[in-house]
């Protein structure tokens, strides 16, 4: 306690520390794998091969990555405004509804170049609406965003069950799902898009919404750091009082932020619904909204970081499935454990290794003061 920790250099904070955290998480998981009688090195090999090497593995990994990018961006944008948006799950579900409504109502009459943007917009707007209501309640009524977004997750889930089992149920269908969406609103698979260009890759669920995710990252970056709105968002997030002093309308900024944040989450539907399922099914969000919190946290609320974190979680999801397949004693729950460890070390304990690391670097970088021997 006597000596304050020297500050960590930027490169170490951004690159070295996350890697050390990751290693710590994998190390603990390795011990657990060892404890149940498997070889952790072998298991890691299987996971990496499953995620990146096996035919189609990379496609699946990037497919999952796309989901995590959308929800990660949603959480991160709200974070910049100091709003804790836990409602990514619900916003994504309603995004699916928006995409479906756009598809069923207008998509059927329009050609793909018009219908696809419309359906994507439908997902964005619907997710945004589900985000803007808690935003409004927070900004104008002081209802805590964490509480309201959690409640809106339940509302969204219930609403979807009602719609999918009732008004939107496909005729003659037993399981709760809609009919197939209009053909013109479906996103092409990446494999099909690349084939005419001469790249022959194994078909996987990876589809054009991966490009939408990359676009969303760029939009996020420009919005947050290069626009006046982004400046307002960050000001409100860092110091509401100062933002008010500076003439920024705090309530309006919070509402707009939550609208866009919800919109990003809603875009998850472009991948799962427009790109893969081609109809709205129950619970297609599968927890991506929640994991988005970890992705944003690990990615330090920056699109590049979010992409890397999303890639990691995507690889874990895909490689974990492989692990389950290859090893008798390792189940899917093992993957959840690894995810949990990563969240624990990169999120909750993100700065645990900071003091020792900083001291070590300080020793190497700063020469010893000659005056003090």
């Amino acid at each position, binding site marked *: 306690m*006597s*000596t*304050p920790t*020297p500050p960590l250099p930027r490169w170490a904070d951004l690159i070295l520390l996350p890697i050390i955290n990751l290693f710590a998480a994998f190390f603990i998981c390795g011990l657990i794998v060892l404890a149940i009688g498997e070889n952790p090195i072998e298991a890691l090999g299987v996971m990496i091969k499953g995620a990146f090497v096996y035919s189609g593995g990379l496609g699946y990994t990037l497919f999952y990555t796309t989901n995590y990018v959308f929800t990660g961006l949603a959480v991160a944008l709200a974070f910049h405004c100091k709003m804790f948006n836990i409602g990514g799950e619900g916003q994504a579900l309603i995004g699916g509804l928006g995409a479906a409504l756009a598809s069923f109502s207008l998509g059927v009459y329009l050609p793909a170049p018009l219908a696809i943007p419309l359906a994507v917009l439908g997902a964005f707007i619907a997710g945004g609406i589900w985000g803007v209501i808690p935003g409004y309640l927070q900004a104008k009524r002081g209802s805590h965003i964490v509480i309201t977004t959690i409640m809106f997750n339940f509302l969204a889930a219930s609403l979807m069950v009602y719609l999918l089992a009732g008004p939107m149920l496909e005729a003659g269908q037993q399981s709760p799902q809609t009919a197939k969406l209009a053909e013109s609103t479906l996103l092409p698979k990446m494999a099909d898009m690349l084939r005419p260009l001469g790249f022959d890759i194994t078909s996987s669920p990876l589809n054009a919404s991966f490009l939408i995710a990359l676009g969303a990252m760029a939009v996020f970056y*420009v919005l947050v*750091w*290069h*626009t*006046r709105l982004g*400046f*307002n968002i*960050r*000001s409100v997030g*860092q*110091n509401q*009082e*100062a*933002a*008010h*002093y*500076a*003439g*920024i*309308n705090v309530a309006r900024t919070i509402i707009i932020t939550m609208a866009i944040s919800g919109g990003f989450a809603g875009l998850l539907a472009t991948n799962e619904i427009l790109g893969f399922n081609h109809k709205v099914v129950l619970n297609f969000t599968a927890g991506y909204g929640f994991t988005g919190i970890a992705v944003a946290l690990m990615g330090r609320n920056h699109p590049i970081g979010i992409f890397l974190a999303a890639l990691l979680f995507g690889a874990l999801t895909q490689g974990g499935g492989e692990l389950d397949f290859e090893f008798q004693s390792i189940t899917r729950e093992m993957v959840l454990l690894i995810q949990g460890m990563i969240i624990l070390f990169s999120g909750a304990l993100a700065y645990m290794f900071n003091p020792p690391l900083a001291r070590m670097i*300080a020793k190497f970088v*700063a020469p010893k*003061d000659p*005056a*003090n021997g």
Partner: protein
Amino acid sequence: MNTALELKNVSKSFGLVKANKNINLAVEAGSIHGIIGENGAGKSTLMNIIYGMHRADSGEIHFGGQKVDVRSSADAIEHGIGMVHQHFMLVPTFTVLENVMLGTEGGLMLRDGRGAALERLLHLSETYNLQVDPHALVSDLNVGQRQRVEIIKALKGGAKVLILDEPTGVLTPQEADQLFEILKVLRDDGVSVLLITHKLSEIMDITDTVSIMRQGEMVGHRKTSETSPQELAELMVGREVLLEVDRKPAKPAEVRFSAKNLGYTNAQGVVELEDINFEVRSGEILGVAGVSGNGQTQLMETLAGMRHLTSGSLNILGTEVTAADQTDPRIIRDLGVGHIPEDRHTHGLVLNFEARENMILGFQDTELAGSGKLFDYKTIQQNCEDKMAHYDVRPPNPRLNAKNFSGGNQQKIVIAREFSANPGVLLVGQPTRGVDVGAIEFIHKQLLELRDAGCAILLVSVELDEIMSLSDRIMVLCGGQNVGIIDSADADRQTLGLMMAGQRQEAAA
């Protein structure tokens, strides 16, 4: 006289920064010893070494003639050293008594410890005139009373040396006077008081001896009776300093800013401002004096649009603003009003933003952020570099976060931003709070330059000296009401003091 505390060649470095270099210091028993120096001179580091929060790299600490090794604050307390920190360390939801007994609760059950603590508390508050209700909640106490609780806490272990770090920063002049009375009683009882401050007037008023620090070194020890504020200031800053403001007579022109029957009632229905009337002309400074908490903050924030006036009207450069208008800071700014807020950390700056971002805070919609739809960081960088050079902000690094600048330089960032917009009307709150002597001189000079350029300035400050030396006319607030406006030529401490206590000035112009 015997020496209560002595430091010999104490040095302390943080990385490459030498915070304290070979410090020698001797404090006599039963004296008030001042330590003065600019922000960052190493005063706090030195006190933290004495109190065991930091360990010196080299050097010795002697206490009561014996060499001691202070490894922690617990050690320091055991040796009879007590400290009152600049920021109070009290639990607001506990009573005074509970705060005092914190750390010395006694056994498993609170009863025994409580009885002993109460006895000690009553004894201390009687002996040293530290009046405070032991059973009051700390959250219900005002700042001066909280400080007394801190002093009792520091003294409860039988401290022979009491360290006070910038104790008057948060106090009204009256509260400060009360504190000084208490310190004198302590001194007469044989306690040595170490008073850390950067206010010259306090040193002159209360201390017996004074040590001056500059850039980590002790640059002098003086008997207070044998020195002058001028000498102390020069030792602190290392060059000649103009303590008196050189103010030419104002040439007031047209009225630019006026309030008529202005009132503000808060959401709880408490009337905080009532029937305020004033006008400020181009080329003059209207000072607002008053004991802190008599409506100055509300006045500034209402004028700046951060609160809605609830009655009366304002006229800002020809535009009439009434309660029905629901003003906000954007509207007021766009009318041409600049605002240096009273609290730069809460309002003036976003501490986690870079200096260059803070330099456009409030102007993010103007050309300063670039002429297009997107931010132009080249323009933003250039804007910041120019202003930093012109207002001598150090270090001149636009990419450094605001929180990493010293208090004086943070204030210069706010001032650079608001002054360079060339406002027609300027609201200035506590422009030199927590700012060191060198920067105060600079800020005062800039304010007068702006006045002479025709700006209408309204200045709020708790430093009466500042109000008197800068203002052309002085308005006094008491209980949210305007007691009167007098010409600063007619103003002396006596008159203003009476007005601040609510006595109306019949002869006021």
